[in-house]
């Protein structure tokens, strides 16, 4: 007995010592922000290029006690990382950028963010596009978790060379006049495919989403109840009509075939927010001058846009708010627009010459500083439910199945309702 006990004792002793060693090694992992000399390090998490590099230098020069740490990551990874850190209770940055697609999810956890209204952000409400302000406001309207940076706006980018070859007009005004409504848009598409024997749009989902965005009620009403029979049905029917007419190239956005399609002419027109212009230019540099931009059928629209938030975990919430407030001031927003083309979400800036007179040479000198603001302002604010993201994916998947011909168009709506309900309760 004794023998086996001592063996245990040995194992436990060694184990404890070992653990102590591990603990000793990892004991030093405390935050190094807020060092003794009053220095404050503010960490900002975002994705892609927010145009902050030069602004960081300017701000640090003006505020010698502040160091800014820019941490750019991948779009989805940043949001998932933020969610994990919020649950874990530590590790979140001082300022976290959140895209509108993820905003609903984080807005419903507004207790984990600093309420910017407490910091005096209420004065900015009148400066923002009303729907932009509402997007990051908690459901009860008492907590504002973020201030808007950019909006996407929405227009239609089209290939002038392909339009010309199909005998369609190429001037933006004439093209915009071609399709005041989505019905007309589909007819124009049929004309195009009939004459060119090519596909007109890139994907059914890229028709569905802009149309849905123009409806007064999206997937969910204010009570977070699924409302498939109103807005979604209208957008779905148009999309099925377009697919049945053979307009869709059935490509998945941001994928190899889709990127290739920009150069090869797999499609002639696509829904195009402000930030998409950079993507087209980077993917298909050889198509310079072959693109132009027209209005989106059915009025305004928006796709994408971001917010800056301060997680409650931040130990320097006051300094973080100071920086955030500085970043959304007109001078900085215009600086960012010039640098990376992100369109500010404060309408007063749209009349600023730096934006209003801006023309994009890649897109046949289209007056983008005029087009996108108009679209962003024309949008009716739509409530996005908590489950908006998964529901959208579920319905898009049904559309893809119709495009793949693995689901009959007649059966598609019933399937879409079923899948949406499943997503809303998952």
């Amino acid at each position, binding site marked *: *007995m*004794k*023998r086996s*006990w*001592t063996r245990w*004792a*040995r*194992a436990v002793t*060694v*184990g404890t*010592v*070992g*653990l102590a060693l*591990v603990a000793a090694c990892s004991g030093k992992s405390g935050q190094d922000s807020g060092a003794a000399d009053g220095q404050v390090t503010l960490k900002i998490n975002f994705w892609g290029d927010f145009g902050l590099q030069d602004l960081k230098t300017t701000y640090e020069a003006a505020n010698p006690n502040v160091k800014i740490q820019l941490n750019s990551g991948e779009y*989805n990874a940043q949001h*998932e990382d933020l*969610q994990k850190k919020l*649950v874990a209770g530590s590790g979140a940055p001082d300022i976290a950028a959140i895209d509108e697609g993820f905003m609903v*999810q984080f807005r*419903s*956890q507004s*207790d984990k963010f600093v309420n910017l209204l407490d910091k005096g952000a209420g004065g900015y409400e009148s400066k923002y596009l009303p729907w932009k302000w509402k997007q990051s406001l908690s459901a009860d309207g008492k907590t504002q978790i973020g201030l808007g940076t950019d909006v996407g706006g929405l227009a239609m980018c089209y290939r002038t060379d392909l339009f010309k070859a199909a005998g369609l007009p190429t001037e933006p005004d004439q093209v915009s006049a071609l399709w005041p409504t989505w019905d007309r848009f589909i007819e124009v598409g049929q004309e195009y495919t009939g004459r060119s024997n090519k596909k007109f749009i890139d994907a059914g989902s890229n028709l569905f989403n802009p149309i849905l965005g123009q409806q007064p009620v999206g997937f969910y009403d204010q009570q977070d109840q699924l409302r498939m029979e109103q807005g979604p049905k209208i957008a779905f029917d148009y999309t099925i009509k377009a697919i049945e007419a053979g307009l869709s190239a059935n*490509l*998945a956005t941001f*994928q*190899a*075939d889709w990127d*290739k*399609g920009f150069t*090869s002419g*797999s499609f002639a027109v696509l829904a195009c927010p402000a930030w998409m212009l950079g993507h087209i230019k980077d993917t298909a540099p050889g198509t310079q001058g072959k693109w132009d931009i027209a209005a989106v059928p059915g009025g305004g629209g928006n796709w994408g846009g971001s917010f800056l938030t301060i997680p409650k975990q931040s130990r320097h919430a006051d300094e973080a708010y100071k920086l955030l407030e500085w970043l959304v001031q007109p001078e900085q927003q215009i600086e960012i627009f010039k640098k990376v083309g992100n369109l500010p979400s404060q309408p007063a800036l749209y009349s600023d010459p730096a934006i209003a007179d801006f023309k994009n040479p890649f897109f046949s000198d289209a007056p983008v500083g005029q087009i996108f603001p108009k679209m962003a302002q024309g949008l009716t604010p739509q409530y996005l439910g*908590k489950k908006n993201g*998964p529901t959208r*994916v579920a319905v*898009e*998947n*049904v559309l*893809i*199945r119709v495009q*793949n*011909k*693995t*689901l009959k168009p007649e059966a598609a709506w019933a399937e879409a309702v079923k899948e949406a309900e499943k997503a809303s309760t*998952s």
Partner: protein
Amino acid sequence: MSTTRAAPASSGRRAAAGRHGPGTDPDDRRLSWRDRLYRFDMRYMPYVLIAPFFLIFLVFGLFPLVFNGVVALRNYRLDDPTLTGWAGLANFRQLFGDEDFWNALYNTFGIFLLSSVPQLLLALIVASLLNRRLRAQTWWRVGVLLPYVTPIVASTMVFSVFFSRDFGMANWVLGLFGIGDGEPINWRADKLHAWIAIATMVNWKWIGYNALLYLAAMQSIPRDVYEAAAVDGAGPWRQLWRITVPMIQPVIVFTVILSTIGGFQLFIEPMLFDLNAQAATGGPDGEWQTIAQLIYKVGWKDLNLGYAAAMSWALFLIILVVAGINTLLTNRLSGGRSR
């Protein structure tokens, strides 16, 4: 149990040291510093040396496993912090009625069959080829291992483009043989094509690795067995199945278990094969959604961690059962030498 007292001679003390509890020996006082150090070295050093592994396993292996079990029995939703508390077996009960789970299980099993069986058979053939006298032997042997060295994400991204519908190489090659001339194959539209594409990625990566394992085992088979078989008129094919396979059976069982575990945890390939990878739905109708992918979706997309944990445990049990069955089957098929 009583312990015999150690003999006073120092050599006897050393011999008996291992059987003594620490500090019980009255002779301890008279031990020199060197002796104590030697004693410590003999008694404790082995434990100290293996401790890091067990500590790391404890922190990153056992703790997550147990904690996962706890979470599986609770309500744990990230998007609804108010919903907490014990759920009992509700999460597991939900599992049985969840058609997504059964669909994912079906997919996982299908891809597993399409990958593991050809993979191990081809590895066996490759290994027996490499076991012959070849020119530039080392070059070939390193060559088959190259896919294994390639980062899995990188190779999957390339394969994902390879299996594109419109401009993919796979369709181009098939087109040379007149397949899919009228309408190119949409690799992401139905189960069979998606499974084949994903199984191809898995096979490409693991054939070489398994072949090298087999090769190592084959080289320990004495040559004279083959010579005797050749004298008796057994051809290469017969030698492979009658001599090689039975004699490397333990390694085969090992690779079967490994590929079962790997196959049932398949995640990166199906994830990145999806054009809309972020949704983690594994195709528009879950055509190739594996269980690991579904767990990820339920946990980090639907934000239902309790249910995801229950799925993980179910997956753990399924792997245990399938690995057990596979071991039995392999034992029988590959000669059935009882051990």
